[in-house]
């Protein structure tokens, strides 16, 4: 197995009286897709925000390419691309303007940004809407532009929070294929979902999250074997009940 790109160790975070996440440890290697699977409110989003360095954990540590995300947030963030249901685009800007803006924030020089935008527009089939204000785009088009934003700076690690939620079947499939391509390029991908079939299809390893902590993790056959169930949904329900 190649080297670990993401190492999260014993993360915990509390909001007021609610312990949102406790004792979560995850590792993702280069060329690997790891799924964080759990129902709504399981603590997936909070975990991913801590991994992406936009929320500070009460306990535990996160390292991206060996860099401590909370001690050196700028260096770590340059190596990761984050996409979630809450990361939207600027409504009054066009996809090209959004990408140029983020390219500048990531420290990419202007000429490289232009080249990179051309590549991404072709790869993600954005030619027809790249110069229209984001407010006029469909959900699928917005998500493509958003993926382009997350891929823009060639991150080693992609953290994707329910990237296919609210998309139709075709757009959802487009996103799933984009993730597969990134794995083929040797990128590390961590993504959360509550859609079991998506996890089964995409993930090399799966972490089942329930009530703020990881109840089991491993490859799909491992999880099924340990739970004695035939599919992932039953395996999850089995773990959650026990």
């Amino acid at each position, binding site marked *: 197995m190649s080297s670990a790109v993401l190492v999260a160790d014993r993360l915990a975070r509390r*909001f007021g009286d609610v312990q949102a996440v406790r004792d979560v440890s995850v590792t993702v290697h280069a060329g690997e897709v790891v799924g964080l699977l759990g129902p709504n409110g399981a603590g997936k989003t909070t975990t991913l*925000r801590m991994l*992406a360095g*936009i*929320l*500070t954990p009460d306990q535990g540590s996160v390292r991206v390419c060996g860099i401590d995300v909370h001690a050196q*947030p*700028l*260096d770590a*963030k*340059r190596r990761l*691309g*984050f996409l*979630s*249901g*809450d*990361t*939207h*685009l*600027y*409504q*009054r*800007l066009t996809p090209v*303007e959004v990408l140029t*803006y*983020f390219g*500048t*924030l*990531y*420290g990419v020089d202007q000429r490289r940004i232009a080249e990179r935008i051309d590549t991404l527009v072709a790869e993600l089939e954005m030619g027809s809407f790249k110069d229209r*204000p984001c407010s006029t785009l469909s959900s699928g088009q917005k998500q493509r532009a958003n993926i382009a*934003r*997350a891929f823009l700076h060639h991150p080693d690690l992609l953290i994707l929070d329910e990237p296919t939620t609210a998309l139709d079947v075709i757009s959802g499939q487009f996103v799933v294929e984009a993730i597969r391509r990134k794995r083929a390029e040797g990128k590390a991908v961590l993504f959360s979902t509550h859609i079991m079939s998506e996890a089964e299809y995409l993930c090399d390893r799966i972490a089942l999250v329930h009530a703020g902590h990881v109840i089991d993790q491993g490859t799909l056959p491992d999880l099924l074997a340990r739970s004695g169930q035939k599919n992932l949904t039953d395996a999850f329900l089995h773990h959650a009940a026990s």
Partner: protein
Amino acid sequence: MSLRPRIIATIWRKEISETLRDRRTLFITLVLPVLLYPLLIIGFTRLAESESQAALAKPSTIAVWGVVPEALQHELSSRSHLSVRPWLGAPPEVRTGLEQRTLSAPSTTPVQRRNERPRDPDVPPEVEEAPTEASAAAREVVGARRAEVVLVLWGDGGNISIYFDSVREESQLAAARTSRVLQAYSRQLAREPFAVAVRDVAPPSRQAGRIIGTMLPFLLLTLCIVGGLYPAIDLTAGEKERGTMQTLMCAPVLPGEIIGGKFLAVWTMSLASALANIVSLATTITRTLPIDGTAIPLSTYALTALVLLPVTLLTSALFLALAVFAKDYKEGQSFLTPVYMALAMPAAVTMLPTIQLNAWTTFVPVVNIALLIKALLVGEARTELVFLVLAASAMYAALALALAVRVFQREQVLLGGSESMRDLFALGGGMRVPSPSLALVMYAVALVASFYGALALESRGFLVSLLVMQYGFFLLPTLGVARVMRMDLRETFSLHTPRIVPLFAAALLGLSAWTFASGIILRVAPPPDTLVRALEKLLRFSDEGAPLWVVWLAVGLTPAICEEALFRGFILSGLRRLGAVPAIGISALLFGIAHASIYRLLPTFFLGVILGIVVWRTRSLVCAIVLHALNNALLASLTESPLLARTLGLHPGADALPWAPTIYGSVLAAAALEILLLSSGGGTFLVRKRTDQGAGPAPNQAVTG
């Protein structure tokens, strides 16, 4: 981690271009003011015109008391706009007196009023008369609005009085109409029984000009504040609602860079709005309203734009800090509307003629700027107060900005989660030394409290006022806060035991540094004579002739202990993490501003820099106290004792220190500083050397310069 200007500029550019594409914000910020002033001013003019026309169309009721000659009777009844009511409201005795021609006109004197409103030239000059039964009755008739005017033809045959109410438009008009009738009548008589100046009714534009003049500061301020309001909501709560705040937080940018870019964008919009307001106002006034005699010079508009800088700074930062707590645009509006009202409404006091910029209103946020604009427009702004208003406003703006930075460092707030305000403002323990924002808050509280304290204690005499201010407003609160927050007192107040050589050098500086301030700085920027006399008088305890040791204790030691605890203790240690030059520079500037006079700013800033360097290098407040006490005591002694001054070769009453003592003193001070630097861990006056305390040599250059 230091902020990167390039990233801040990138964020600023994006925010501006996005804001400029938002029609709602654009309309309120830039289009509204451009439309509003012409509409408002033309509207007022029209309104005034139609009011006047309505008044002109209505006949004036005139009560006529006295025996009316036939020719005058004919004149009066021939005018359709006059409704003549003989003897209306006249008491029987007055009527009898006038009918029998025994009641003659009371003696009169012309009225001299301050702040007189522009007078209708058709109305004869107002006179004050000895109160009589007739005049009292006439006043009552006009006051009760039974008639617009009472015309009294006195029994002596030659005198006629017109009683009218100058505040009532229709009464003024009636008086003018009556005057014209009398004018026509006197021409028939071929003699002048009374002098009446006849001119047309004043143009309504003048009245509109008066209204606009009163409303102007309030209008300008409220519109400029609104200019930053909507961008602030849009860039914070709006972004949260649209889900773009988290997108920005994924990028490798610091919270300080996000707030920096956003703040600059909001400020830019607020400034653009201020500029649009002023340009529109100036154009409207000069193009559509040729106000006679009250034309406002262009430089006034430029100055007004300038004083709007700090107030837009304050409101932009405050709006940004508060709007970020809102989850969406709507909530942002409901958060900020009361804040906006609270900020803008007090500025309405400028519409009251009696409220002016003075020592009391100088420190009231926003209101002080409104009053300053008013004073500028009337041409009454005093330099000292302008300085204080700008300093106070800059201070409030810095506080608001510190609050905004603090809020933006809360990731939970930015992510849309709730975080109680109590958490945000929790002072709590665990702070070894004050933070820069706490130092700033402490300064603001001490400054405002001592300023108003001094005003309140003015009548108690200099000594009481000085002691209460120094111990009550500087020392005790500072010690109290440090103690309550369980700070490390030794670190916060630099309570390290001084070594003997640096202490000696500090004492030498205390005896010599003033020569540079008095000989060079005061020569370049001399204070006005009145201030010098006032300061001398203060130092002499208002001619009370206190013994010298009392002067030393009160003017020397007391400020040395109290001011040093605040400025070189609490504030300097709070700013320490910013580095030597900013920490010493800012603390010295705050020290200078606290002396509440633009003329004392430079000398006190200079002293503040020296004191800052001393504490930075020696880590001993005692050294600063010794320096400060000797400096003050020596200056007080020189004022107190002309003999001492002559002994030192000084000429009492001279504008600046003569060159010889200036040069000797400055050389001595430079040598003392050199000794102090050499004896407190290296890095000398001339040789750059990094020290373990992170104190670069740069502040030294400020002194050598």
